[in-house]
């Protein structure tokens, strides 16, 4: 079976979120792998948004451009998204149209007259989709009952009635126009977003404190931890601004609690002084930077990979720092645990770079067993110090870390250049350079903790796509698309961006660097670090994620 791609399009507040979420559940309940991503305007009502759902036999966690089915809830949605429909695709919509590809079902009218209230229009639409997709009505009823279980008998009955009505209407309309069929399968998948994986991983890693200021697309992380306070036990504080957020997290970390914050570009800009503070005071800190297109407020709800160099260079002065960019929610789980471990081990900030696409998209996994990386703590132990010095100069650069109140030993931290006790120093001859050197020594150690990039099909490849972070799924799919037409592409994918690992690029292969930004930030980073040159680029910077089709098209445009 070829993957089926459904686009649900409509105004904000019109129900596309409910319909999309339910469709994801339904596909999973039928035993299919789903991938979904969202694209929405920065407003609460109106506008035109899309919720795209990809359904397949195997998880392919990448967005598609062309749709098989467009469920357009209004005229504007139809106008905006119809161009994405494949030639043999169909449109389900309350709008009237005589073309053959059109299933015209006036959801709201039917809901009002047949069921009693227009609020059932969305369930009617679901019924129509289920029918067009060839899903099972009984399974669907079960899922719908479950979803509305808290709403009372009457609501459940009405929803089921609406579902069946939509299902039957579309059934009659579909005739021979809906070739899809999704019979029940045994398979079950884990379906989750990075904004769900990261907070779970953080709590697992031992994070006990999060402070953040709401900013799309990072807000889901603190919200998840607030919602799960009783199970995960994380102290959650909505700060008055991002400066407070990062400083609170630093305070909590200094006092012994693993701590984090999460934000997006503008908020991260406000946190930068704090990141430098964590570097200077050698306080472990994990910051999630969920990217969206800038500059300034940019496109608040869209996606981009525009802050790579900003993250790598964040913070005045020189201090060690790590930047990790996970490629999917499973990788995000691993990298989150790794971030807390390394922040603790090297007593320094670690930045987790995600983006709106990764934060909000549902990815499917056959297995989700992220247990290879386990939480590790690096406390110094209170017993073995004749005289405790928080910033003792050591060979490794790592000083013994205790927390205040743990023992009689006093823990003194300072943002000024300091001596081994944590007191201000202006000793330029010995202490200042020794401290600077000690901090930078940790960067050399950190370098040893990073892994080389992932290589896929590089041997025998004619050229290699080089990518980072959340674009992995699309690049992998692009490679297989190209291979299908005899074009031998490979992939080198980076998820550990700073410090960069020791790595030798395969010799003599043309490199094409693929990024969700305009200026080629990975290119610049790689050029400075590995002295490589690339043959070409694939950049996308319209606020939408890279798709395999897009990558292939741009590659061929450059190469005839």
């Amino acid at each position, binding site marked *: 079976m070829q993957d089926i791609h459904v686009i649900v399009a409509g105004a904000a507040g019109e129900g596309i979120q409910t319909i999309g979420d339910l469709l994801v559940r339904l596909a999973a309940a039928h035993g299919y792998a789903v991938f979904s991503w969202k694209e929405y305007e920065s407003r609460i009502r109106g506008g035109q948004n899309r919720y795209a759902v990809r359904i397949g036999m195997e998880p392919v966690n990448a967005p598609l451009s062309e749709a098989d089915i467009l469920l357009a809830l209004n005229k504007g949605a139809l106008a905006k998204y119809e161009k994405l429909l494949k030639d043999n695709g169909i449109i389900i919509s309350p709008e009237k149209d005589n073309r053959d590809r059109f299933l015209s079902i006036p959801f709201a009218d039917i809901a009002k007259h047949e069921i009693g209230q227009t609020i059932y229009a969305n369930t009617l639409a679901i019924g129509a989709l289920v029918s067009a997709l060839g899903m099972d009505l009984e399974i669907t009823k079960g899922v719908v009952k479950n979803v509305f279980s808290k709403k009372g008998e009457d609501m459940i009955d009405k929803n089921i009635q609406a579902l069946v009505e939509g299902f039957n209407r579309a059934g009659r309309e579909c005739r021979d126009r809906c070739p899809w069929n999704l019979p029940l399968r045994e398979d079950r998948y884990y379906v989750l977003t990075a904004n769900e994986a990261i907070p779970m991983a953080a709590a*697992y890693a031992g994070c006990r404190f999060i402070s953040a200021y709401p900013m799309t697309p990072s807000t889901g992380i603190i919200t998840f931890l607030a919602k799960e306070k009783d199970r995960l036990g994380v102290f959650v504080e909505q700060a008055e601004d991002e400066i407070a957020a990062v400083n609170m997290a630093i305070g909590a970390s200094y006092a*012994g*609690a693993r701590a984090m914050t999460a934000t997006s570009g503008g908020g991260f800009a406000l946190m930068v002084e704090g990141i430098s503070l964590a570097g200077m005071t050698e306080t472990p800190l994990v910051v999630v930077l969920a990217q969206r297109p800038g500059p300034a407020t940019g496109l608040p709800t869209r996606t981009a990979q525009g802050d790579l160099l900003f993250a790598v260079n964040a913070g005045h002065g020189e201090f060690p720092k790590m930047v990790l960019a996970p490629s999917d929610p499973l990788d995000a789980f691993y990298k989150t645990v790794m971030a807390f471990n390394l922040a603790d081990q090297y007593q320094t900030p670690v930045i987790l770079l995600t983006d709106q696409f990764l934060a909000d998209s549902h990815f499917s996994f056959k297995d989700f067993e992220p247990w290879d990386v386990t939480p590790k703590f690096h406390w110094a132990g209170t017993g073995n110090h004749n005289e405790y010095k928080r910033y003792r100069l050591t060979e490794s650069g790592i000083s013994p870390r205790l927390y205040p109140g743990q023992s009689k030993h006093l823990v003194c931290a300072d943002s000024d250049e300091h001596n081994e006790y944590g007191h201000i120093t202006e000793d330029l001859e010995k202490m200042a350079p020794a401290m600077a050197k000690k901090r930078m020594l940790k960067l050399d150690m950190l370098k040893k903790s990073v892994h080389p990039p992932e290589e896929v099909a590089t041997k025998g490849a004619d050229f290699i796509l080089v990518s980072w972070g959340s674009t992995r799924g699309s690049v992998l799919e692009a490679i297989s698309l190209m291979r299908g037409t005899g074009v031998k592409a490979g992939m080198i994918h980076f998820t550990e961006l700073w410090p960069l690992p020791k790595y030798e690029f395969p010799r003599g292969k043309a490199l094409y660097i693929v990024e969700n930004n305009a200026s080629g930030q990975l290119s610049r980073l790689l050029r400075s670090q590995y002295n490589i040159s690339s043959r070409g680029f694939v950049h996308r910077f319209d606020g939408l994620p890279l798709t395999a089709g897009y990558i292939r098209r741009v590659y061929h445009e450059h190469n005839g």
Partner: protein
Amino acid sequence: MSTMDDYQSDAEIQWCPGCPNFGILQAFKKAFVSIGKDPHEICLVSGIGQAAKLPHYLKCNFFNGLHGRAIPVALGVHAANPDLKTIVVAGDGDCYGEGGNHFLHTLRRNPDITVVVHNNEVYALTKGQASPTTPKGERRTLQFNGVQVPPLQMLAVAILHGCTFVARGFALEVDHLQDLLVSAVEHPGLSLVEVVQPCITWGTHPLKWYQERVRIVKEDYDPTDRSAAMELAMTWGETIPIGILYQSGPVETFGHDYRHTVTDRPLTELKPLDKGLMEKMLSEFRL
């Protein structure tokens, strides 16, 4: 029992000789002895400025962070370990200027910490520019024709926004200040102590000017009277009232929901999450 010597730091003091900050330092040591906490049970948090150097001159835990950001760091410390006596030491520029937003919102949070503001009506460390508390009309090194705008009245703001302990002290009234600090630290909830701390280098008036004006509030003054407290908080001129201006409460403190439902112990004492729980949570995503 601790003694003054227990809080004696070896760090070299960088203040100008004769600065009233020394009085505040002395009051702190005396207060710590009265409170009966050992150095390791106390955590001082400061930002940047002359005042913010004070933690270096006392022996206890401290976090000397960024200009303006002492309060959020202190909130994090207190959230992580409510057993520590967390005390913020800040200048008026540090606390009311650069960190003004944190100050405002922390009034609402009511954390069980103490904030001590050295009010010298100037940015001393950066060489004498106006601060948010510089009186209108007074000249500073950047305000050649005098400050054009009125000063902030943060003690009044604190009372207005529910701070349940608001006091004003004077750096040269060491014993009185000691008592204020003891009461402040022992008060459940946020306590604010603003200390009149004349700057002998950049200030407009000689010490005598302050000594003549400072008046300890009368014995029979009722600090639970909010309007009277507002009045005194805004009094700065012919007289400068010092003492506990306002005290009420107790009211719910920062993190009370968490403290009641998860733990009232330091967060370091929480057990690691069990892998079984994580598997259970993840299984909820298996659709």
